[in-house]
Protein backbone atom coordinates (compact mmCIF):
# COMPACT_ATOMS: atom_id res chain seq x y z
CA UNK A 1 0.00 0.00 0.00
CA UNK A 2 1.40 3.46 -0.90
CA UNK A 3 2.62 5.87 1.73
CA UNK A 4 0.11 8.29 3.18
CA UNK A 5 0.69 11.54 1.28
CA UNK A 6 -1.03 13.51 4.01
CA UNK A 7 2.28 13.19 5.86
CA UNK A 8 4.23 15.40 3.44
CA UNK A 9 5.37 18.43 5.43
CA UNK A 10 4.61 16.83 8.78
CA UNK A 11 7.04 17.53 11.62
CA UNK A 12 8.25 15.08 14.24
CA UNK A 13 7.27 15.82 17.83
CA UNK A 14 9.98 18.03 19.30
CA UNK A 15 12.39 15.94 21.36
CA UNK A 16 14.62 17.01 24.21
CA UNK A 17 17.90 18.70 23.27
CA UNK A 18 20.79 16.24 22.96
CA UNK A 19 24.05 16.91 24.79
CA UNK A 20 27.09 15.79 22.81
CA UNK A 21 29.82 14.44 25.09
CA UNK A 22 33.49 13.70 24.47
CA UNK A 23 32.75 10.08 25.21
CA UNK A 24 29.99 9.93 22.55
CA UNK A 25 32.46 11.24 19.97
CA UNK A 26 35.29 8.98 21.12
CA UNK A 27 33.06 5.92 20.95
CA UNK A 28 31.71 6.77 17.50
CA UNK A 29 35.20 7.47 16.13
CA UNK A 30 36.42 4.14 17.54
CA UNK A 31 33.46 2.33 15.95
CA UNK A 32 34.36 3.65 12.50
CA UNK A 33 38.03 2.84 13.14
CA UNK A 34 39.12 6.47 12.81
CA UNK A 35 42.05 7.60 14.95
CA UNK A 36 42.08 11.26 13.88
CA UNK A 37 43.37 13.09 16.99
CA UNK A 38 40.82 15.90 16.65
CA UNK A 39 38.14 13.39 17.73
CA UNK A 40 39.83 12.50 21.00
CA UNK A 41 42.58 14.99 21.90
CA UNK A 42 41.28 18.25 23.34
CA UNK A 43 44.63 19.98 23.05
CA UNK A 44 44.87 19.07 19.36
CA UNK A 45 41.30 20.26 18.77
CA UNK A 46 42.02 23.57 20.52
CA UNK A 47 45.21 24.01 18.53
CA UNK A 48 43.06 23.62 15.41
CA UNK A 49 40.77 26.39 16.64
CA UNK A 50 37.88 24.40 18.16
CA UNK A 51 36.54 24.77 21.70
CA UNK A 52 36.63 20.98 22.23
CA UNK A 53 37.00 17.71 20.31
CA UNK A 54 35.29 17.58 16.90
CA UNK A 55 32.72 14.99 15.79
CA UNK A 56 33.20 12.93 12.59
CA UNK A 57 31.09 14.16 9.63
CA UNK A 58 28.52 11.37 9.95
CA UNK A 59 28.37 11.42 13.77
CA UNK A 60 25.02 13.20 13.92
CA UNK A 61 23.28 10.05 12.70
CA UNK A 62 23.73 8.73 16.23
CA UNK A 63 22.03 11.78 17.70
CA UNK A 64 19.12 11.98 15.26
CA UNK A 65 16.09 9.74 15.16
CA UNK A 66 17.35 8.28 11.88
CA UNK A 67 19.79 6.34 14.02
CA UNK A 68 17.61 3.33 14.46
CA UNK A 69 14.28 3.52 16.22
CA UNK A 70 12.75 5.33 13.29
CA UNK A 71 11.01 7.82 15.55
CA UNK A 72 7.73 9.18 14.35
CA UNK A 73 7.92 7.52 10.93
CA UNK A 74 6.92 4.28 12.68
CA UNK A 75 3.41 5.68 13.12
CA UNK A 76 1.15 3.12 11.35
CA UNK A 77 -0.83 5.96 9.78
CA UNK A 78 2.18 6.78 7.56
CA UNK A 79 1.98 3.17 6.22
CA UNK A 80 5.79 2.78 6.00
CA UNK A 81 6.56 -0.96 6.20
CA UNK A 82 10.05 -1.26 7.70
CA UNK A 83 10.39 -4.73 6.20
CA UNK A 84 10.38 -3.08 2.76
CA UNK A 85 12.69 -0.19 3.61
CA UNK A 86 16.23 0.37 2.44
CA UNK A 87 18.40 3.42 2.97
CA UNK A 88 18.59 5.40 -0.26
CA UNK A 89 20.63 8.55 0.36
CA UNK A 90 22.19 10.53 3.17
CA UNK A 91 23.64 14.05 3.14
CA UNK A 92 25.09 16.17 5.92
CA UNK A 93 25.50 19.91 5.27
CA UNK A 94 27.29 21.81 8.02
CA UNK A 95 27.15 25.46 8.99
CA UNK A 96 29.82 24.57 11.54
CA UNK A 97 31.32 21.34 12.88
CA UNK A 98 29.75 19.59 15.87
CA UNK A 99 31.98 19.73 18.96
CA UNK A 100 31.79 18.12 22.40
CA UNK A 101 29.70 20.23 24.74
CA UNK A 102 27.16 21.13 22.09
CA UNK A 103 23.55 20.90 23.18
CA UNK A 104 21.67 20.25 19.97
CA UNK A 105 18.02 20.46 19.03
CA UNK A 106 16.82 18.28 16.15
CA UNK A 107 13.77 19.29 14.14
CA UNK A 108 12.76 16.57 11.73
CA UNK A 109 10.14 16.78 9.02
CA UNK A 110 8.93 14.79 6.03
CA UNK A 111 10.09 16.96 3.16
CA UNK A 112 8.80 14.96 0.24
CA UNK A 113 7.47 11.71 -1.14
CA UNK A 114 8.12 10.64 -4.72
CA UNK A 115 7.59 7.64 -6.95
CA UNK A 116 10.57 6.06 -8.70
CA UNK A 117 9.63 3.01 -10.71
CA UNK A 118 7.84 0.61 -8.38
CA UNK A 119 9.41 2.24 -5.30
CA UNK A 120 8.53 5.25 -3.23
CA UNK A 121 11.14 7.69 -1.93
CA UNK A 122 10.53 9.35 1.43
CA UNK A 123 12.75 12.38 2.12
CA UNK A 124 13.33 13.29 5.75
CA UNK A 125 15.11 16.53 6.63
CA UNK A 126 16.53 17.22 10.08
CA UNK A 127 17.57 20.73 11.02
CA UNK A 128 20.12 20.83 13.83
CA UNK A 129 20.53 23.95 15.95
CA UNK A 130 22.65 24.68 19.02
CA UNK A 131 21.75 26.04 22.45
CA UNK A 132 22.04 29.61 21.13
CA UNK A 133 19.55 28.80 18.39
CA UNK A 134 22.23 28.99 15.70
CA UNK A 135 22.09 26.57 12.78
CA UNK A 136 24.66 23.75 12.94
CA UNK A 137 23.69 21.30 10.22
CA UNK A 138 20.99 20.01 7.91
CA UNK A 139 20.66 16.26 7.43
CA UNK A 140 18.78 14.85 4.45
CA UNK A 141 17.82 11.19 4.56
CA UNK A 142 16.07 9.46 1.66
CA UNK A 143 14.33 6.20 2.54
CA UNK A 144 13.32 3.78 -0.22
CA UNK A 145 10.04 1.96 0.28
CA UNK A 146 10.40 -1.00 -2.09
CA UNK A 147 7.49 -1.94 -4.31
CA UNK A 148 4.87 0.20 -2.62
CA UNK A 149 4.25 2.71 -5.43
Amino acid at each position, binding site marked *: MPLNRDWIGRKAPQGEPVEITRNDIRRFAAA*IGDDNPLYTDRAAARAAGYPDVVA*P*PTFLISASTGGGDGGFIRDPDLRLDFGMVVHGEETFAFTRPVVAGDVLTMEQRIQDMAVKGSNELLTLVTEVTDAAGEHVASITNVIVSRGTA
Partner: protein
Amino acid sequence: MPSSSPTFAEVQVGTEIPAREFQLKRENLVRYAGASGDFNVIHWNERIAKSVGLPNVIAHGMLTMATAGRLVTDWVGDPGKVLRYGVRFSRPVVVEDDDQGATLTVSGVVEEKNDDGTVVVGLTATVGDNKVLMGAKAVVRL
Protein backbone atom coordinates in the same frame (compact mmCIF):
# COMPACT_ATOMS: atom_id res chain seq x y z
CA MET B 1 46.29 11.80 9.12
CA PRO B 2 48.83 13.21 6.66
CA SER B 3 51.83 15.15 7.91
CA SER B 4 50.74 18.16 5.85
CA SER B 5 47.32 19.07 4.57
CA PRO B 6 46.84 19.97 0.91
CA THR B 7 46.54 23.67 0.15
CA PHE B 8 43.93 25.17 -2.16
CA ALA B 9 46.69 26.41 -4.49
CA GLU B 10 48.33 23.03 -4.97
CA VAL B 11 45.12 21.09 -5.54
CA GLN B 12 43.77 20.96 -9.09
CA VAL B 13 40.71 19.51 -10.72
CA GLY B 14 41.78 15.92 -11.32
CA THR B 15 44.03 15.69 -8.26
CA GLU B 16 43.65 12.15 -7.00
CA ILE B 17 43.40 10.78 -3.49
CA PRO B 18 44.99 7.33 -3.73
CA ALA B 19 42.81 4.28 -3.16
CA ARG B 20 42.76 2.63 0.25
CA GLU B 21 41.24 -0.63 1.44
CA PHE B 22 39.15 -0.93 4.58
CA GLN B 23 38.03 -4.22 6.14
CA LEU B 24 34.47 -4.36 7.45
CA LYS B 25 34.08 -7.39 9.71
CA ARG B 26 31.20 -8.55 11.91
CA GLU B 27 32.95 -6.99 14.89
CA ASN B 28 32.91 -3.61 13.14
CA LEU B 29 29.16 -3.93 12.55
CA VAL B 30 28.51 -4.73 16.20
CA ARG B 31 30.62 -1.81 17.36
CA TYR B 32 28.88 0.50 14.90
CA ALA B 33 25.45 -0.67 16.04
CA GLY B 34 26.32 0.24 19.60
CA ALA B 35 27.88 3.61 18.81
CA SER B 36 25.20 4.70 16.33
CA GLY B 37 22.15 3.25 18.03
CA ASP B 38 21.12 1.41 14.84
CA PHE B 39 20.22 -2.09 16.02
CA ASN B 40 18.38 -3.22 12.89
CA VAL B 41 18.70 -7.02 12.98
CA ILE B 42 19.81 -7.33 9.34
CA HIS B 43 23.15 -5.88 10.49
CA TRP B 44 23.86 -8.64 13.01
CA ASN B 45 21.46 -11.57 12.72
CA GLU B 46 22.31 -13.94 9.86
CA ARG B 47 19.13 -15.98 10.29
CA ILE B 48 16.87 -12.96 9.89
CA ALA B 49 18.99 -11.35 7.16
CA LYS B 50 18.65 -14.52 5.07
CA SER B 51 14.95 -14.82 5.83
CA VAL B 52 14.32 -11.43 4.19
CA GLY B 53 16.23 -12.41 1.06
CA LEU B 54 19.70 -11.04 1.76
CA PRO B 55 22.72 -13.27 1.06
CA ASN B 56 23.95 -12.64 4.59
CA VAL B 57 24.27 -9.91 7.22
CA ILE B 58 24.91 -6.52 5.58
CA ALA B 59 26.86 -3.51 6.85
CA HIS B 60 25.00 -0.40 7.96
CA GLY B 61 24.93 1.96 4.98
CA MET B 62 26.02 4.67 7.39
CA LEU B 63 29.10 2.62 8.36
CA THR B 64 30.05 2.36 4.69
CA MET B 65 29.50 6.12 4.36
CA ALA B 66 31.57 6.86 7.47
CA THR B 67 34.38 4.58 6.32
CA ALA B 68 34.50 6.11 2.83
CA GLY B 69 34.53 9.55 4.47
CA ARG B 70 37.80 8.71 6.22
CA LEU B 71 39.54 9.05 2.86
CA VAL B 72 38.53 12.73 2.83
CA THR B 73 39.08 13.54 6.51
CA ASP B 74 42.51 11.87 6.46
CA TRP B 75 43.40 13.81 3.29
CA VAL B 76 42.39 17.20 4.70
CA GLY B 77 43.53 16.40 8.24
CA ASP B 78 40.90 18.52 9.99
CA PRO B 79 37.46 16.83 9.77
CA GLY B 80 35.84 20.17 10.65
CA LYS B 81 36.77 21.35 7.16
CA VAL B 82 34.23 18.97 5.62
CA LEU B 83 31.29 21.28 4.91
CA ARG B 84 29.07 18.79 3.16
CA TYR B 85 29.11 15.05 2.63
CA GLY B 86 26.46 13.10 0.75
CA VAL B 87 26.05 9.64 -0.78
CA ARG B 88 23.53 7.38 -2.44
CA PHE B 89 23.56 3.74 -1.40
CA SER B 90 23.58 1.58 -4.52
CA ARG B 91 24.31 -1.93 -3.21
CA PRO B 92 24.45 -3.58 0.19
CA VAL B 93 27.86 -4.57 1.60
CA VAL B 94 27.55 -8.24 2.53
CA VAL B 95 29.67 -9.24 5.53
CA GLU B 96 30.39 -12.95 5.92
CA ASP B 97 31.11 -14.41 9.34
CA ASP B 98 34.85 -14.86 8.86
CA ASP B 99 38.10 -13.08 9.68
CA GLN B 100 38.14 -11.06 6.46
CA GLY B 101 34.65 -9.63 6.25
CA ALA B 102 34.17 -7.31 3.28
CA THR B 103 36.95 -5.28 1.67
CA LEU B 104 35.81 -1.76 0.86
CA THR B 105 38.07 0.04 -1.63
CA VAL B 106 37.76 3.83 -1.63
CA SER B 107 39.42 6.36 -3.91
CA GLY B 108 38.83 10.05 -4.55
CA VAL B 109 39.36 12.77 -7.12
CA VAL B 110 38.96 16.54 -6.98
CA GLU B 111 36.08 17.33 -9.32
CA GLU B 112 35.66 21.07 -8.79
CA LYS B 113 37.54 24.05 -7.39
CA ASN B 114 35.32 26.88 -6.24
CA ASP B 115 36.08 30.59 -5.86
CA ASP B 116 35.21 30.47 -2.15
CA GLY B 117 38.22 28.28 -1.35
CA THR B 118 36.31 25.00 -1.32
CA VAL B 119 36.80 21.92 -3.45
CA VAL B 120 34.44 19.09 -4.33
CA VAL B 121 35.88 15.60 -3.89
CA GLY B 122 34.16 12.72 -5.68
CA LEU B 123 34.53 9.34 -3.99
CA THR B 124 34.38 5.86 -5.51
CA ALA B 125 33.61 3.03 -3.09
CA THR B 126 33.63 -0.55 -4.31
CA VAL B 127 33.44 -4.09 -2.97
CA GLY B 128 34.90 -6.41 -5.59
CA ASP B 129 33.61 -5.10 -8.91
CA ASN B 130 30.51 -3.48 -7.47
CA LYS B 131 30.06 0.17 -6.61
CA VAL B 132 28.36 0.34 -3.22
CA LEU B 133 28.02 4.13 -3.18
CA MET B 134 26.93 6.39 -6.04
CA GLY B 135 27.25 10.16 -6.30
CA ALA B 136 29.42 10.22 -3.17
CA LYS B 137 30.78 13.75 -2.81
CA ALA B 138 32.34 15.88 -0.12
CA VAL B 139 32.72 19.65 -0.14
CA VAL B 140 35.89 20.59 1.72
CA ARG B 141 37.40 23.93 2.69
CA LEU B 142 41.16 23.86 2.17
